[in-house]
């Protein structure tokens, strides 16, 4: 048996953990001939990979047609969405049971479950192929997509936020509406730089570095004091974070925030998904994850009950619900992790992308260039 990383090409591989439906849900990996992953996204049980050649590959559960492959059967191997091939895919966002896609030309497509209008197509009929959302034209200049549990969001280069889908808990931030089947703008009078849809709550960051949250108010996941929860249907400033916020990620019951100096977490932590230890299982007050304070974090991702962080050194830390092996910490013996733990599998890799979903995690990583003294390792 050779070293497992000896197999991975220099251009890297997508590593899969947890219930991906790929490789019988065992930890596995795949890569592309003459192409590399540029963007990963995970929904509840389905996953998307966008490549440098602007192709979209999908796999996983497909009960709602969320893979956009023209059927509803589970797909256990990354499969190119042929119907989109004439268009160049730039980004994808997997929600609980639907998928959004942005093309280089600036079109936004949607497929999958649509019971709350989360496809943005003006109705509530599910689609098993990608349909273009006519609302968006190249003029919108979309740069980010996010999808939650029956919610969708698109953010433009100039900081305009568009949302659609389920608003029963105020999770798309439109105060007086139950749900919308076409994109609506959420305007707080400031340009927005980042958006994240969780299962039943959402958050965004303004260009001046403020964090706003909205949606289901339980268990502290909005990071707001009790007296503000009555207004949970409207985006509200999370005042408990003193520094400039860069990114936010929302899971099922928790929220993780990357600032210029630290990573904050709040909400539910009963499985360790806050990374705040074995004594704090819920907090509405944003708390710094002290264990990784000496690391420079560059990207954060939340699954339903777990969290992953990428460092500037190309390492990945995971924590939270360890079931199904989704933390990437073993093949058959698992446990919840209450503090960030480095995935040792990637010590010899540079991690470039990570995406956490309901029961799975995808990591794109490439082998580190051999350092002196290790050059004969594989020979």
């Amino acid at each position: 048996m050779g070293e497992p990383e000896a197999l991975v090409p220099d251009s890297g591989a997508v590593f899969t953990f947890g219930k991906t439906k790929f490789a019988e849900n065992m930890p596995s990996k795949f890569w592309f001939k003459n192409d590399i992953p540029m963007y990963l996204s995970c929904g509840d049980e389905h996953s998307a990979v966008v490549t440098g050649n602007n192709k979209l590959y999908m796999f996983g559960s497909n009960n709602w047609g969320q893979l956009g492959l023209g059927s509803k059967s589970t797909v256990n191997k990354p499969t190119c969405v042929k119907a989109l091939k004439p268009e160049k895919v730039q980004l994808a966002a997997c929600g609980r049971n639907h998928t959004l896609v942005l093309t280089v030309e600036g079109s936004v497509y949607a497929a999958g479950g649509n019971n709350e209008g989360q496809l943005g197509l003006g109705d509530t009929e599910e689609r098993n192929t990608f349909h273009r959302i006519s609302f968006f034209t190249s003029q919108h200049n979309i740069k980010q997509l996010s999808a939650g549990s029956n919610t969708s969001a698109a953010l433009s280069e100039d900081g305009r936020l568009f949302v659609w889908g389920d608003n029963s808990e105020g999770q798309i931030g439109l105060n007086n509406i139950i749900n919308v089947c076409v994109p609506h703008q959420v305007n707080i009078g400031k340009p927005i730089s980042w958006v994240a849809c969780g299962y039943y709550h959402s958050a965004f960051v303004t260009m001046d570095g403020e964090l706003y949250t909205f949606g289901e108010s339980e268990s502290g996941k909005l990071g707001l004091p009790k007296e503000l929860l009555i207004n949970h249907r409207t985006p509200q400033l999370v005042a408990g974070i003193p520094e400039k916020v860069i990114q936010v990620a929302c899971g099922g019951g928790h929220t993780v925030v990357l600032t210029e100096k630290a990573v904050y977490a709040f909400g539910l932590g009963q499985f360790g998904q806050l990374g705040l230890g074995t004594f704090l299982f819920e907090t509405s007050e944003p708390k710094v994850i002290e264990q990784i304070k000496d690391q420079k974090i560059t990207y954060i991702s939340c699954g339903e009950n777990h969290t992953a962080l990428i460092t500037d050194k190309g390492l990945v830390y995971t924590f939270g619900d360890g079931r199904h092996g989704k933390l990437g910490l073993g093949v058959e013996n698992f446990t919840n992790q209450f503090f960030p733990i480095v995935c040792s599998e990637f010590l010899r890799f540079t991690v470039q992308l990570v995406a956490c979903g309901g029961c799975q995690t995808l990591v794109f990583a490439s082998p580190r260039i051999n350092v002196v003294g290790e050059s004969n390792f594989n020979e």
Partner: protein
Amino acid sequence: TSEASETQATDRDDVVVAPLSEKYPKPDSEKMSIEIVSLAFYPEAEVMSDEKVKQVYVEYRFYDLPLSETETPVSLRKPRAGEEIHFHFSKVIDLDPLEQQGRRQFLFDMLQAQNPEQRHLKFTVVSDPMDEEAKDCEEVGYVYLELWQILESGRDIIEQELEIVSPEDQDVAIGRLKVSLKAAAALHSIYQEMIEDLL
């Protein structure tokens, strides 16, 4: 054959899938898995008001396995009234018919035992003192799981809630431990194999 030649690629999509390790997955009849899922104490249980108990872990013993592999790797804050704490600590135990005869015999003995004391897998809930210098960990509860029920029903146990009883008086239930035990196929195979040897 080299591993590289076993990689599969489809002509159309250019996706290359790394070969699965040959070690996994093992057939169900040659392994079992135990998961300590979660724990709750009854609000009226004495342990709830015991100030000395701040955090707890859970352990079990299995034949030759060191405790370091069969105790939850972390202690969690004592659950509050109505609260559950979640370990999700799962372990797969190799029951290979050639290499692990001892473990198979251990399970068979458990299935066959006349003495009720030896018929079950025992889990212990342990109080883990916060202070390093404090005295030893104290056992705060026991949980008994009859393996026979799995053999008899042919069904794995999935997230079953078992009573935690007080070490002082095993008639007093102090809470509930949720466990999963996937062993139906292995126990069936072990029982068949051992019975045949006996005949």
